[in-house]
């Protein structure tokens, strides 16, 4: 296996770190959303349940897209 040039590797690592930071932010929003929805549901309000589920799904899709992005960067940076 050939060792790719360091500059390319560094750029790849920065991109992956950025994507990971974005995923962490999305995850924090999702955790807040879940706790707020649960709180509302237990209080007898089912109004925010559907929008919360849709929004949580969108956040998950965004995290999944970022994961695919990380995989692609990983492969392109580590291979010549």
């Amino acid at each position, binding site marked *: 296996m050939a060792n790719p040039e360091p500059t390319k590797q560094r750029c790849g690592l920065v991109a992956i770190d950025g994507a990971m930071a974005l995923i962490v932010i999305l995850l924090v929003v999702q955790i807040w*959303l*879940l706790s707020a929805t649960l709180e509302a549901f237990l209080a*007898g309000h089912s109004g925010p349940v559907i929008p919360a589920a849709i929004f949580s799904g969108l*956040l*998950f899709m965004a995290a999944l897209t970022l994961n695919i992005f*990380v995989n692609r960067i990983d492969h392109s940076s580590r291979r010549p």
Partner: protein
Amino acid sequence: MNWFGRASSEPLWKEEFSVHAADERYVTRRQLTKFLVLTSLGMFVGNLWILIRSIFQRQPVFPERPIAQVDEIPIGGVKLFTYPSKEDHCILVRTAESQYVAYSQKCTHLSCAVYYSQENNRLECPCHQGFFSIKDGSVLQGPPPRPLPQIVLEREGGKLIATGVKVSGNG
């Protein structure tokens, strides 16, 4: 489509155990990213679970049960009872000559038993100083996030009948 899998034809051991030390940083980052995305999936499943629970939630049926005689307690006095089940402790307060209110005795913060403070005319939780209005059970002060569930009362002759539980949000 290969969502989480490897895009190359290299065996897994070569992907996960890099020959080059520099590549190891990629592997750890990729694994952490995968873990974060799976956690995100867990949050989404949690939201879906709440959605399914809310769709299939049945409206509770409350029994009608006499809880006190009209003149059983003096003005400003209280009576403790259980409703709708024997585990649900409630408090009945006579606020005026012909005015009665009843609430769940369980504080909405951490489930301590609330009591009626006649001098302040409010329900108080002794654990964390959460105060509730005697008029509607709304939170006046303290950490409770929600009002106290109110017991719906009806008067039949000389009896006070509990007919349901009204749960309301704050604000």
